[in-house]
């Protein structure tokens, strides 16, 4: 027997575990292990009091291993690593055993079985902990510079924010002009300022800052290097095609959205006078007095909501585009200010003028606009009449399903946002794309701009449909995230990564090919002997390479072949 001193803590999770697992029996069973010095149960192991108790035990009994049997490691790995660190124990000599998601919650009908399973799971954790070696985090130096991709309103504001906290900025824009969609907008909500004005102000601020290098007609063509020191190649088109290389510590993606374009015939799209919301908004923005369309005064307008959004079975876009209700209501008010006598009819499914934008909705109703509600299974029908006017037929849920025939001059299809096609960028950065086609953050509330790719954040409407204000807010969140990472000049990375034993490796190349992160290269040891070498800053410790190695030369630190075998033997002990 090895002579380890391991502490084991079995959590009740306030009944979540102890209602279905006899935690006292588990404690007694594992306490028999000669390497277990301390074995306790606790109501909530994650509570401050129990954390302190563990710290005290580690110090008092000079423990060199820690097992916490509670919930999923996704929840509290960092909590208990912190406990170990505070007590002077190497944090990588701790094992989290999942008795909740993988046992008590899964076997609520079988208390005896769940208890037996718990004992095996904890024993496996002890078996692993017995073999764990201390590990130290990989420390990398970080470059105090960020790359911002996309100079729309989110990217411009992020660049200014980064420069103001002392980080260098490379700001690139694919188009010849900065500003994206906002540049095209006239009056915007809620401040009633002009889109063009906002963009030229921001561009002025960008130009005033020496720390920002702005490239238009520019694209990212390659990202290399490792976390904290990415190498990015930026190609600019124009008079001379040129590729420049920069070192950056972080990348902020702010590539924006595309407007949904209805199909021919969708709610009458294609008929003269049937416009999308962006087309109509341009018309209203440009009009200086009463609105005229095709030489005829516009006396009435019908808006049809949720076009290209919340499509259900009928299309690919299941999501709500969020900004369009408020945008349509704001455009209604903008038009009313210019043409007070226009009759405006809004055909909606659900009004979502959230937060203070509700005031715009109130204002629009109080000024006389009519709102009708249709059900998704009976959508409005749009037809062109002989006299050129448009007829919209709708079943109004607010007036006992009356069929209402609206005769109008214009029909506005309130179209939403769709993800922009950016396949090359997605591949170059390995960006995670959600089912809706927008980029995915790690957690919408807790880590709202970070992606699973280290050092790469997303902001603005490439993430999900957002208003300009929300885009700017997320851009600034990405600035804070960059600052937290880059202002220290160094970052600590998880040391639980794959390593190659050069004595065993024959470089067949199987691991290099399998690595999803491109972390495995080739090294010449001299005399023609080639071996695989893994960059610890790029490796994520996923373990995908280890089972492929025909020579068993690869081990993931913290999950070595020996450690995993010991866990399996413990789990299966006595099972025929």
């Amino acid at each position, binding site marked *: 027997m090895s002579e380890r001193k391991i502490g084991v803590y079995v959590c009740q999770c306030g009944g979540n575990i102890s209602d279905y697992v006899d935690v006292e029996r588990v404690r007694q069973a594992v306490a028999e292990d000669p390497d277990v010095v301390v074995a306790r149960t606790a109501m909530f192991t994650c509570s401050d009091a129990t954390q302190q108790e563990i710290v005290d035990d580690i110090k008092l009994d000079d423990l060199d291993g820690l097992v916490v049997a509670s919930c999923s490691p996704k929840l509290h790995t960092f909590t208990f690593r912190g406990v170990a660190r505070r007590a002077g124990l190497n944090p990588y000599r701790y094992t989290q055993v999942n008795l909740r998601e993988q046992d008590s919650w899964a076997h609520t009908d079988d208390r005896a079985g769940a208890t037996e399973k718990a004992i095996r799971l904890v024993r496996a954790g002890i078996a692993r902990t017995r073999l764990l070696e201390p590990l130290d985090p990989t420390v990398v130096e970080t470059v105090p510079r960020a790359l911002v991709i996309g100079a729309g309103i989110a990217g411009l504001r992020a660049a200014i924010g980064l420069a103001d906290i002392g980080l260098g900025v490379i700001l690139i824009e694919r188009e010849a002009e900065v500003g994206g969609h906002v540049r095209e907008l006239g009056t915007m909500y809620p401040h009633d300022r002009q889109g063009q004005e906002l963009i030229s102000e921001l561009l002025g601020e960008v130009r005033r800052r020496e720390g920002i290098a702005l490239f238009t007609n520019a694209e990212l063509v390659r990202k290399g290097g490792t976390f904290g020191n990415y190498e990015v190649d930026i190609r600019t088109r124009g008079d001379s095609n040129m590729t420049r290389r920069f070192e950056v510590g972080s990348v902020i993606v702010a590539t924006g959205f595309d407007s949904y374009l209805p199909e021919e015939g969708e709610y009458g799209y294609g008929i003269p006078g049937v416009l999308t919301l962006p087309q109509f908004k341009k018309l209203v923005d440009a009009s200086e007095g009463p609105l005229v369309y095709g030489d005829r005064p516009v006396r*009435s307008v019908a808006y049809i909501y949720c076009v290209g959004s919340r499509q259900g079975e009928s299309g690919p876009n299941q999501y709500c585009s969020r900004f369009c209700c408020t945008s349509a209501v704001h455009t209604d008010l903008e038009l009313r200010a210019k043409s007070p006598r226009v*009759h405006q*009819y809004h055909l909606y499914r659900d009004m979502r003028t959230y937060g203070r934008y509700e005031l715009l*909705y*109130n204002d629009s*109703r*109080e*000024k*006389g*606009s*009519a*709102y*009708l*509600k249709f059900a998704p299974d009976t959508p409005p029908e749009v037809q062109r009449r002989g006299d050129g006017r448009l007829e919209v*037929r709708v079943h*109004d849920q*607010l*007036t*006992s399903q*009356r*069929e*209402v*025939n*609206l*005769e109008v001059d214009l029909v506005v299809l309130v179209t939403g946002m769709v993800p922009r096609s950016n396949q090359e960028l997605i591949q170059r950065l390995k960006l995670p794309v959600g089912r809706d086609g927008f980029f995915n953050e790690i957690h919408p509330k807790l880590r709202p701009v970070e992606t699973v790719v280290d050092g790469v954040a997303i902001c603005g409407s490439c993430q999900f449909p957002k208003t300009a204000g929300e885009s700017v807010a997320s851009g600034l969140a990405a600035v804070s995230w960059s600052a937290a990472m880059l202002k220290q000049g160094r970052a600590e990375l998880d040391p639980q990564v794959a390593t190659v034993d050069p004595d065993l490796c024959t470089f067949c190349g199987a691991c290099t090919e399998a690595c999803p992160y491109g972390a495995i290269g080739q090294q010449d040891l001299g005399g023609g002997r080639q071996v695989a070498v893994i960059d610890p800053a790029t490796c994520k410790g996923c373990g995908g390479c280890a089972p492929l190695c025909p020579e068993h030369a690869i081990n993931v630190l913290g999950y070595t072949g020996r450690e995993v075998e010991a866990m399996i033997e413990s789990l299966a002990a006595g099972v025929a």
Partner: protein
Amino acid sequence: MSATLQPDLAERVGMDPSFNPSACMNCGICTAVCPLGLRHLPREVFAYVVLGMEGEVLQHQEEVFSCLLCKLCEVSCPAGVHITENVRALRHYFDRNVFHIEGR
């Protein structure tokens, strides 16, 4: 069945600037609290006025004149609709257009 709309109906019914049936957000609290249990007044009849469905408005004459003007709905209305004043305006509209009583 569908009706021809009179887009200027609201202007013809409510000649006073305080007439505001379009402010309604269709929550239905008015109908829930009505001590007479009126089904269509105020919310749905107001919607007919805003949409210009004159025939539908005329069909609800009895409800328009049954209302007690007790204001229970109005004090409960979260959208600030001047319900009783709007009902009075509707009664005037019936006086003028149905009973041909000129006044005001």
